[in-house]
């Protein structure tokens, strides 16, 4: 085996030379001693697949209200003869098994809750989880039929420091969201699926190990039609190893192309196309209850689960949110609650605190059957790390602050005025962009000072002849633009006590109100 010199762990280099070389200066510190197992071999180039199987997804997706934990619960598949899809612990202890007829299950159970299996809801759940798992790799492939998600982790291993650590993180993430995953890791997606399904602890990273791992497994675990399995049993084959030993061409002749293709995919001799999952533009999170919920207090725990899902999804996409919408689903109607924060963020704890405040003041109009958390708008990346630093320094992101004001009030609702050189007060300032303020050349021009230091400007409007006046000065200007103005400025107090900033137009002799002095 030829070891390439640029392999990340520098296996071919003499000890000490690799860690001191400058091109590794920015990398995280290397492990002091190398694991002799092939796990730490340079595998970053080749694909490695992690399969997550969620056998109890239908159960996990339900929120079990506290009292129902001990009550048997059965999820049935809707068909001509209803069968048990999954059952909770209480029901399984009573003897209910998936695949059982519902009538048989009900015969052994006492006052069970029976719910229908909703494939569409399960598919959505799986997509949510796929979006969550995008934080570990960019190539995620959900398989809703088998309630399984496949992740290509070959290129993520260095970042997450090896398969063991990565697997633990995936498992931990899913557990915290309330799911019970089975995980398998192998060189090929097909083998990873098998290992996940069997809860096999082996992590075969190369072809030989994979072969050794698969060989002792019984043929029945292969995803093959029952007829093929019987046929293979018929010729005396019991284990996958027996199948692997047969020449492929003969297999093709005897059983068609399906069997050798499966073998090739298991071992990685033939690549299996895996579509990439793209998360939806605006994610939504959904949970249903096994029973109707009557108090807002009971909503907190499921809401926390939704917010954790949100946090993980946002982390995967490097997004954050400023507003959320929570829909409480009743039997016929939906209550919509919205919450907007002053600063965007993704942390579930922060959001939960706000929602708790909100929910504690709410009176439920009807019992709640499900919760749905919708994100009206995802904010672009980068805001979250900035938030981290800002929190440390106690400052806010500058553009974000004004952007939030503009986002809510409108683009022209936030403005600044820059002085111009024009002598006429109504022309002496112009709105300017928030981003750039023109460099101020000089102080106020003498012509502008003639009109006094008034504070407020109104559009010029006719004014009644004033009472006692305090004269400010005479302004003549604008003749070069054709708008020739000659005005005498003064301040006067009107009957209501206002300090009016007025002028007399010397041409017409009329008094006009220019603004307010105070």
């Amino acid at each position: 085996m030829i070891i390439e010199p640029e392999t990340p762990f520098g296996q071919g280099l003499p000890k000490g030379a690799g860690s001191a070389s400058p091109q590794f200066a920015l990398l995280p510190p290397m492990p002091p001693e190398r694991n002799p197992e092939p796990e730490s071999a340079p595998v970053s180039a080749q694909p490695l697949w992690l399969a997550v199987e969620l056998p109890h997804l239908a159960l996990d997706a339900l929120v079990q209200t506290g009292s129902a934990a001990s009550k048997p619960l059965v999820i049935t598949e809707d068909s001509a003869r209803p069968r048990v899809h999954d059952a909770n612990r209480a029901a399984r202890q009573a003897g209910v098994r998936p695949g059982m007829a519902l009538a048989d299950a009900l015969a052994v159970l006492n006052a069970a809750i029976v719910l229908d299996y909703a494939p569409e809801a399960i598919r959505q759940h799986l997509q949510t989880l796929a979006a969550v798992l995008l934080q570990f790799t960019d190539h995620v492939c959900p398989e809703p039929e088998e309630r399984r998600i496949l992740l290509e982790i070959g290129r993520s291993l260095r970042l997450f420091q090896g398969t063991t650590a990565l697997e633990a993180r995936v498992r931990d993430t899913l557990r915290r969201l309330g799911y019970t995953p089975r995980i398998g890791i192998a060189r090929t997606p097909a083998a990873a699926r098998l290992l996940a399904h069997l809860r096999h602890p082996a992590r075969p990273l190369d072809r030989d190990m994979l072969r050794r791992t698969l060989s002792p497994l019984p043929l029945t675990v292969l995803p093959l039609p029952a007829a093929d399995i019987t046929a293979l049993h018929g010729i005396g084959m019991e284990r996958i190893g027996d199948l692997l030993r047969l020449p492929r061409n003969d297999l093709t002749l005897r059983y068609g192309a399906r069997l050798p293709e499966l073998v090739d995919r298991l071992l990685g001799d033939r690549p299996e196309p895996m579509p990439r999952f793209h998360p939806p533009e605006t994610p939504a999170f959904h949970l249903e209850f096994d029973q109707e919920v009557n108090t807002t207090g009971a909503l907190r725990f499921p809401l926390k689960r939704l917010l954790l899902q949100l946090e993980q999804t946002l982390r995967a996409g490097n997004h954050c949110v400023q507003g959320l919408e929570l829909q409480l689903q009743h039997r016929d109607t939906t209550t919509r609650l919205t919450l907007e924060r002053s600063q965007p963020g993704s942390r579930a704890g922060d959001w939960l605190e706000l929602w708790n405040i909100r929910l504690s003041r709410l009176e439920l109009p009807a019992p709640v059957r499900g919760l749905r958390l919708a994100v009206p708008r995802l904010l672009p990346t980068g805001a979250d790390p900035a938030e981290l630093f800002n929190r440390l320094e106690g400052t806010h992101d500058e553009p974000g602050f004004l952007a939030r004001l503009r986002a809510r009030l409108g683009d022209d609702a936030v403005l600044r005025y820059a002085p111009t050189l024009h002598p006429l007060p109504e022309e002496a300032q112009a709105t300017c962009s928030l981003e750039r303020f023109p460099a101020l050349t000089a102080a106020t021009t003498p012509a502008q000072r003639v009109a006094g230091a008034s504070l407020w400007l109104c559009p010029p409007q006719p004014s009644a002849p004033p009472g006692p006046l305090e004269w400010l000065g005479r302004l003549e200007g604008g003749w070069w633009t054709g708008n020739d103005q000659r005005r005498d400025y003064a301040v006067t107090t009107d009957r209501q006590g206002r300090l009016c900033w007025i002028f007399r137009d010397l041409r017409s002799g009329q008094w006009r109100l220019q603004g307010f002095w105070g």
Partner: protein
Amino acid sequence: MSALEELLAHPRLWRGRGTGTPAATPTRPSGFVQLDRALRGGWPRGQLTELIGAPFGCGETRMLLPVLAACTRERRRIMLVAPPAAPWIPGWRQLGVDPERVFVIRATAEEDIVWSCEQILRHPKTGALLAWLHGNRSAPLRRLRLAAGASDACAFLYRPPAAASQPSPAHLRIRWRANGDRLHLEVIKFTGGRVAEDKPVAIRRDDY
């Protein structure tokens, strides 16, 4: 909790030796000797100050100009929320305010105004907030009080005369009234402070 603190800080409540004097609120000098004396140092920072009165334009903004000029000298911002007229920047500039740091927020709905004020007060670069509220309700002010407490900006809320009869969480409430060439300021609530004299503070309107 804040209600309790407010109660304990009440000047008529005597709590025994040493505990009776509340911690002094940081202030900004108002620029008027009589007013500084009445407010024990100047306009409070990190607190809401209500200026109650009508109509707009009697000199109630001008009396804040020393504070506003001091804010921009410290390179902090002046935020005008929902002012009834446009500020005439050359005038502000002649009075020592840097126009680059004066922002105007246009809003009409009370809810938007309060929300903007909250955002502004939470921003550390805000030196002074001047907001014109037209509603009489005081409930939204509680949020503003919290936001103000987290900042050290001066928050001035202009409110209509009818608001004077409503209870309010503001730290300082002043009713102003134009009278001839003076502006009379009557302190109607001053948390932790003594309403020093019964007669209002009068500021000459042509002094500034």
